[in-house]
């Protein structure tokens, strides 16, 4: 079973970067019992389709907008349900994620897509980092991803010691991120 974890979102808009930070946090800190692919999705647009096509399971880490729920709340939803869930379509990359699901739904074979979303507090301000409520729930967000991986038989062992702050700093110093870490 080929598994991909895709962190989606725009790091320029504060909490919207949470999925991207989370995938990097997973990549730097954990060793997995089976080979998985971890993708810095950013604002991927239609390039997401390739992952839906080439993998058996895709776990997307993202923000999710839920009316009447407080920031930091976490949802773990199969994509099938999401297609009928209008409220998810609130920010731009979310529109794409659902839209690409629509397009790929006509394929013979498409990955099982699972969305792990956290309700953001602020996706307005143009800055890197996360608000307090997302920082407080970041560990739970990571654990939700890890337990979803476990369902597919992937065990994780913590091997690194990178903090959330370290990860955010990498995105602020991109030459380090791209040319030294990789």
């Amino acid at each position, binding site marked *: 079973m080929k598994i991909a974890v895709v962190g989606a979102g*725009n790091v*320029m808009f504060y909490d919207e970067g949470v999925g991207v930070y989370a995938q990097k946090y997973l990549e730097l800190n954990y060793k997995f019992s089976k080979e998985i692919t971890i993708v810095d999705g950013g*604002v991927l*647009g*239609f390039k997401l389709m390739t992952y839906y096509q080439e993998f058996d399971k895709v776990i997307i880490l993202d923000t999710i907008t839920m009316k009447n729920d407080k920031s930091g709340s976490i949802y773990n939803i199969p994509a099938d349900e999401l297609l009928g869930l209008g409220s998810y379509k609130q920010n731009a990359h979310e529109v794409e994620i659902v839209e690409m699901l629509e*397009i790929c739904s006509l394929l013979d074979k498409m990955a099982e897509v699972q969305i792990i979303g956290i309700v953001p507090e602020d996706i307005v301000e143009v800055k890197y980092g996360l608000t307090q409520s997302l920082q407080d729930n970041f560990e739970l967000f990571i654990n939700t991803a890890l337990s979803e991986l476990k369902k597919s038989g992937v065990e994780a062992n913590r091997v690194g010691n990178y903090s959330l702050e370290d990860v955010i700093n990498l995105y602020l110093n*991109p030459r380090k991120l*791209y040319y030294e870490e990789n």
Partner: protein
Amino acid sequence: MSKKHIIVDPITRIEGHLRIEAVIDENNVITDAFASSTMFRGIETILKGRDPRDAGLLAMRICGVCTGTHYQRSIEAVEHAFGITIPKNARIVRNLLQGSLYVHDHVVHFYHLHALDWVDIKSALKADPVKTAEEALKWSDNPWGVGVGELKTIKERLEKYVKQGRLGLFANAYWGNKNYKLSPEQNLIAVAHYLQALDMQREASKMMAIFGGKMPHPQSIVVGGVTCVQDIKNPARIAEFKSLLNKFRSFIKRAYLPDVLMAGTVYSDEALDGTGSGLKSFMSYGDFKLDDTGFYNASQLFPSGVVLNGDLSKLYPLDQSKISEDVSHSWYEGDTNLHPFEGETKPHYTGLEKKDDGYAYLKTDEKYSWIKSPLYDDNRVEVGPLARIVIGLAAKDERITKYATRFLEKLGEKLGLNKPAPVDVIFSTVGRTAARAIETELMADVMMDWIDELAENVASGDLRTWTEFDFDEVSKDAKGYGMAEAPRGSLGHWVVIKDGKIENYQAVVPSTWNGAPRDYKGRMGAYESALIGIKVADPEQPLEILRTIHSFDPCIACAVHIVDTKGKELGQFKVSTSCSI
């Protein structure tokens, strides 16, 4: 799960949504239109004070589809400021990376983001596979993947999906709308290619990865050149690129172009009467340097220039100092009209008009969009593939004229005109879509030459990929711009550098030019203007609006609102998008 009308309130969203308010009269003809968007409005906040060598890697996070374009443009702005000319290998590699982005974007745009504005999937269920295979031969001597056996399989798949209710997933498809004009067989051809294009697009992303480095974020371009010297030295990598390109090129010639010719013929009434023509004034910054004479001196694949009011006999040379951004109708302070070097971004959100019936409307007499209104020498202009073809024709560019003429000749033949279709047909929604296909074929062909040119240059012993520069020296006090063409139109980055840090930064993106609101004189933007006069067959199904807005390849998610003349909102509909700026 049947047809969904999804309401997206664009104003609660910060970036990313375009809202169209179209006013229709009693005959369902659009009499007025307003484009409003929330867009990225803070790039300078992120980039100010940063090392200019970081600008490209930061800027590519603006938008997913244009990742590579923002990245390259930003680096070029810094190179221009520093006065650096990159080596030949770097120039060719950048052209190949950008070219791959073009062909990938355009094919996905046509089949997956735009085709369902022309193609009725449900009608394809009525098609006879044998007749469909015959039909395909009318549009191509060697059609791609539409043998009787393949068509039968695809039809069966389609029938299965319908039973499962999966076609209901398509939120903005209006199956059965009378403005769908293709025959069941023609629809089946397009559906077959829609599915095949899903596989083909994977090949295009592999092309990007060969010289771009770890995907999905390319990282092989740096200030001064490129870093992929190992890849260009490796004949196997070059051969792999060529083989992927060749296959994709075959699909373009045997599926994409014939399908656009087929749609163009069936929808020729709309092309001939200029439906969706809009401003008819065009601008191209020019792109794809063909020699190594450096910034804005080199000859280019797409020439730069401006054409006004559809007059192809007159080409105005492009002068970047004539660009300004007007904020009279945009949610920024004041009513300034400034060049991007002086550009300011001071948000001043004045909100929507409140209505009692639960909907809010744009204050169209005042400020109503986050997009500024860019002007060229005080003209509203359209940018994109159609603009590039128009400028190429006006510049009498041999290559562009050849590809465009070939398409017009085929269209003329299909329409039984005994001569090429008149060039004016390109001033239409159909023409905008055709221009993109013409450009894709041209690009795929010229990329075959470029990859050979790269291999030959490397074989000759030239392995230079980077031009050295003394950062401390060149970054004391510099300013520059990276102006070129993203797949969906003119993209410019302007940078001011002081003492090694970025002091000011502005990006003017293609959808700013096309999706802008009114300007200080009350003149419409390109989207707005293209909608005027279009008759909507069924106001509950704004197919015609989607078709025209999509023909621009908007890089913004979009909510369409139809308003009748009394201001009552009839519905809200989603328009698909390929990018999230």
